[in-house]
């Protein structure tokens, strides 16, 4: 009686709920998605190639501009990959400060995820509250390195400057109020019937599929795999920190939400430990004036808020530029699980699926 016809539509690239310039090609049967393909490349700048034409020192400014919500975590990966390449040992105080700022950045990234994800699904209040706390973290970024978003926080071999005066007070003030803020978000969302209806059982991705597709970060941990590079291959000062890796087994959007909320609690714990056990000493290792590489290649992976961010660097003898530079961007690899999550579901749920992956297109397209 009715003609059964599939419809093809584009979600994005200017759609506000696609978190940037992501275009998703959808084929719909009524309201059910039968085919879903993310199309990327609208924000491609050629960061890898640009970095190959610049010195090791200059390359860091480009890592800020990949995942602009977690610039400090990207800086840390870049700095540590270079230190691995040149065989530099970083002073212990610098390691502690790096760890602390990295965890602050994880908080900021998760807060912006919570804010936009909730806004996509329809909870506007959380957006305003989460941005209020993120503002404090950005202020701390500004106090430490002078910039709020594109931080360029670390240097190869340590830090440019020590913590500014009054920084400890800012941190303690933040840590004193942050648990109550987390409780506020949870009271708004955890029991909310609309939130639960929109997230429980939506965009499932089991552990087997997640591992097969190389998905990392909270998406993997919400499927029950306790893989966290901070624990598995400790870097910076994480070996000395006491924290847990929160996991869930439900593997749906709600589980990922809970995992990220627990991760924020653990981050606050790590920051407290860093402040308590902050060692004294220099913050910069002794470096040669111009860094010149030997023929050498390194891959260094760190746990960015979105998952495993890996830097692959190849040095050329006598050159101060990397011969080859490649980034294993967590968002890029997590995004390929979108068809698996969305196909067979309703079109309204793909917004939740995109939000729960926590993608930033600056990093995916690079």
């Amino acid at each position, binding site marked *: 009686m009715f003609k059964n016809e599939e419809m093809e539509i584009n979600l994005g690239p200017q759609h506000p709920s696609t978190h940037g310039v992501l275009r998703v090609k959808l084929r719909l049967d009524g309201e059910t998605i039968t085919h879903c393909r993310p199309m990327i490349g609208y924000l491609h700048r050629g960061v890898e190639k640009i970095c190959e034409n*610049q010195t090791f*020192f*200059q390359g860091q*400014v*480009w890592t800020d501009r990949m995942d602009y919500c977690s610039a400090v975590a990207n800086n840390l990966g870049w700095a540590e990959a270079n230190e691995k390449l040149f065989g530099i040992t970083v002073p212990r105080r610098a390691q502690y400060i790096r760890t602390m700022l990295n965890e602050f950045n994880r908080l900021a990234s998760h807060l912006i995820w919570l804010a936009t994800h909730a806004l996509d699904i329809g909870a506007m*209040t959380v957006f305003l509250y989460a941005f*209020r706390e993120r*503002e404090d973290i950005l*202020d701390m970024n*500004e*106090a*430490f*390195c*002078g*910039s709020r978003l*594109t931080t*360029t926080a670390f240097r190869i071999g340590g830090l*440019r*400057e020590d913590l*500014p005066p009054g920084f400890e007070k800012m941190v303690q003030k933040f840590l004193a109020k942050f648990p109550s803020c987390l409780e*506020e978000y949870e*009271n*708004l969302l955890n*029991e*909310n*019937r609309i939130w639960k209806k929109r997230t429980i059982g939506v965009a499932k991705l089991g552990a087997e599929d997640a591992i097969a597709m190389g998905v990392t970060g909270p998406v993997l941990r919400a499927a029950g795999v306790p893989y966290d590079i901070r624990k598995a291959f400790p870097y910076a000062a994480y070996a000395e920190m006491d924290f847990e890796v929160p996991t869930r087994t439900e593997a749906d959007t709600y589980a990922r939400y809970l995992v990220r909320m627990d991760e924020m609690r653990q981050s606050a714990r790590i920051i407290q430990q860093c402040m308590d056990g902050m060692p004294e000493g220099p913050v910069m290792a002794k470096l040669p004036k111009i860094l010149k590489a030997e023929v050498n290649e390194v891959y260094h992976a760190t746990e960015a808020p979105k998952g495993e961010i890996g830097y692959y660097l190849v040095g050329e003898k006598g050159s101060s530029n990397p011969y080859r530079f490649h980034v294993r961007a967590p968002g890029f690899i997590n995004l390929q699980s979108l068809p698996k999550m969305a196909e067979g579901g309703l079109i309204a749920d793909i917004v939740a699926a995109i939000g729960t992956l926590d993608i930033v297109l600056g990093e995916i397209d690079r």
Partner: protein
Amino acid sequence: MNKILRTLIPFDIAKGLAITGKHFAKVFFTANRRKVPFHIVSEYPEVVAKVQPRFRGRLTLLKDEQGEIKCVCCLACEKICPTQVITIEKGKKEGRKMPFPVRYDFEMERCIFCEFCVESCGFDSIILNHQFELAAYNREDFSLGMVGAENMFEPSNVGKFSVADD
């Protein structure tokens, strides 16, 4: 039975509304009162926004006490700049041993405010000032040099557009 009650009576919504209500009441009863610490918004263009001491603003050339330009044209900042926004021309000046910059051009539209130039400078002759209102109507206003109305020594006056004149 319990489940039906929970579905019928929206406790979960009430819980959320209690939080928003609390915040609303806090602001409502203290509105227009000064020195209320939890008002987090500021009246930005009218009230000057404060920045941290390490804030990275526009590149500025410094002069010493005699009014001499401190820059000695070592070209370290030009070399380290990731976006190549600095161009320096070396020259000589009478009564000065060190080289003197005849031209120090700065293309602000390409500057990414990373402060690598200041870090590389061994003579403390440049800083990034605390200016962040750097918008302008004309493209030429972003090309700064040592002479002219928009120069490298004084803060740009492009920030004036953010505050109403009346």
